[in-house]
C-alpha cells in the first residue's frame, strides 16, 4: 500500500483572464478598482488534478487542502476551489496586502509561508499552478521545493501515482515529452494541458459555503513577508501601430528601403 496522499494546493486570486489590465494614472500600480477577480486558471488546473487523483483510485487521497495567501478577499479563490471539490481551506491573511498591492507579496514570501504551513500541518504532495497570470513569476513552486528540499516536477502534462508511492510526471519539453519519477513527497506545478477543469455548479457553490476555512497570519507561521523588490515603474505595453497596404511592387521596395530592411 502506498502512503495515502495529503495534498496541498496553493491557489491565488488574480485579475480575471478576460480583463485587459490597465496601469493607473500615477504609473505605480495596476488598476484594480471595479475589476473582476477570479481564481488563477493554472491554480484551477492544479485543483482539478488533485480531485482527479482522488477519483482515479479509491483510498489514494486522504485530504485535499487549499491554501491561499493575501488579503481577506482571497477567500473568494478558496471558495471556488472548495466548490470544485477540495475538502478544506486555509487563508493566510497578510496585513497590508490588498488588491492594489497584491504584487508586493512576492513568490519567495509565499514559498516561505507555504513551507511553514506544510511543516506545521504536514503533507506529502503539493500541486500548484506553474504561474499566476498577474505577475507571471513562475517561481513559487520551484522556491517551495527548494525550501522543503523535496523533488520538484514542473510544468506537468500528466501525473500518475503508482502502488509504491512513486510519482511519475510527464512534461512537454522542446521536441517531445519527458517523464520524471520520484518518490513522495514531491512538488508538482501544472501546465495548461494537464486537464480540463470542471465547471462548478450552482449547488456545489452553495455546499462549499459550509466547508471549513481556517485563518492564519504570517506571524502565526513566523514568516517575514516584507517585500525585497521595489517596483521602479509600470507602463502599458507599446500600442500596436496599424499596418498599411501598398499598391505596387515599387512602393513596397521603396518602403522596405526606408526602414532599412533591404
Amino acid at each position, binding site marked *: 500500500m502506498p502512503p495515502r496522499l495529503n495534498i496541498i494546493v496553493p491557489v491565488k486570486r488574480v485579475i480575471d*483572464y478576460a480583463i485587459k489590465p490597465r496601469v493607473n494614472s500615477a504609473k505605480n500600480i495596476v488598476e484594480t478598482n471595479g475589476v473582476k477577480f477570479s481564481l488563477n486558471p493554472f491554480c484551477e488546473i492544479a485543483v482539478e488534478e488533485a480531485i482527479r487523483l482522488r477519483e482515479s483510485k479509491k483510498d489514494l487521497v486522504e485530504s485535499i487542502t487549499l491554501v491561499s495567501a493575501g488579503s481577506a478577499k482571497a477567500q473568494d479563490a478558496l471558495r471556488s476551489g472548495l466548490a470544485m471539490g477540495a475538502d478544506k481551506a486555509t487563508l493566510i491573511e497578510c496585513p497590508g496586502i490588498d488588491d492594489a498591492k497584491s504584487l508586493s507579496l512576492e513568490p519567495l514570501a509565499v514559498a516561505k509561508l507555504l513551507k511553514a504551513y506544510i511543516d506545521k500541518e504536514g503533507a506529502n504532495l503539493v500541486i500548484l499552478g506553474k504561474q499566476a*497570470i498577474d505577475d507571471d513569476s513562475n517561481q513559487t513552486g520551484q522556491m517551495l521545493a527548494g525550501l522543503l528540499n523535496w523533488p520538484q516536477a514542473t510544468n506537468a502534462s500528466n501525473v500518475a501515482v503508482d502502488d509504491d508511492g512513486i510519482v511519475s510526471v510527464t512534461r512537454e519539453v522542446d521536441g517531445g515529452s519527458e517523464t520524471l519519477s520520484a518518490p513522495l513527497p514531491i512538488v508538482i506545478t501544472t501546465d*495548461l494541458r494537464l486537464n480540463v477543469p470542471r*465547471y462548478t*455548479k450552482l*449547488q456545489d457553490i452553495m455546499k462549499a459555503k459550509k466547508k471549513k476555512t481556517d485563518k492564519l497570519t504570517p506571524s502565526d507561521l513566523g514568516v517575514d513577508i516584507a517585500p525585497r523588490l521595489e517596483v521602479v515603474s509600470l507602463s502599458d505595453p507599446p500600442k500596436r501601430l496599424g499596418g498599411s497596404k501598398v499598391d505596387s511592387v515599387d512602393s513596397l521596395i521603396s518602403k522596405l528601403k526606408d526602414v532599412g530592411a533591404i
Partner: protein
Amino acid sequence: MAASNQLRYKVIRQYKQLLYMGREYPRGYQFFRDRLHSGFMNNANITDDKQIEQKLRFAEFLEKEIEALYHLRKYRAMKRQYYD
C-alpha cells in the same frame, strides 16, 4: 402529482443553473437572461411529463455547450498569451 412536482423542481433548478452561468456570457448577462427567460416561458404551458423531460434534456445539452464555450474561451486566451 408527485412526479410532476419533482419535474417542476428540476426545471427550476436547471433554470437557476443556466442563469448562474449567464453571468459570464460574452454578450452580457442581460442578453443571456432575456433569451433564457423567453425560452423557458415559451414552454411554460407544457403539461405532458414526457415533453417536459425532453425539454429538460435540451436544457442540459445547452448547459454543456455553454460550459464548453467558456472552457475553450479560457484555454484559447491562455494559449494565446503564453504558448503562441
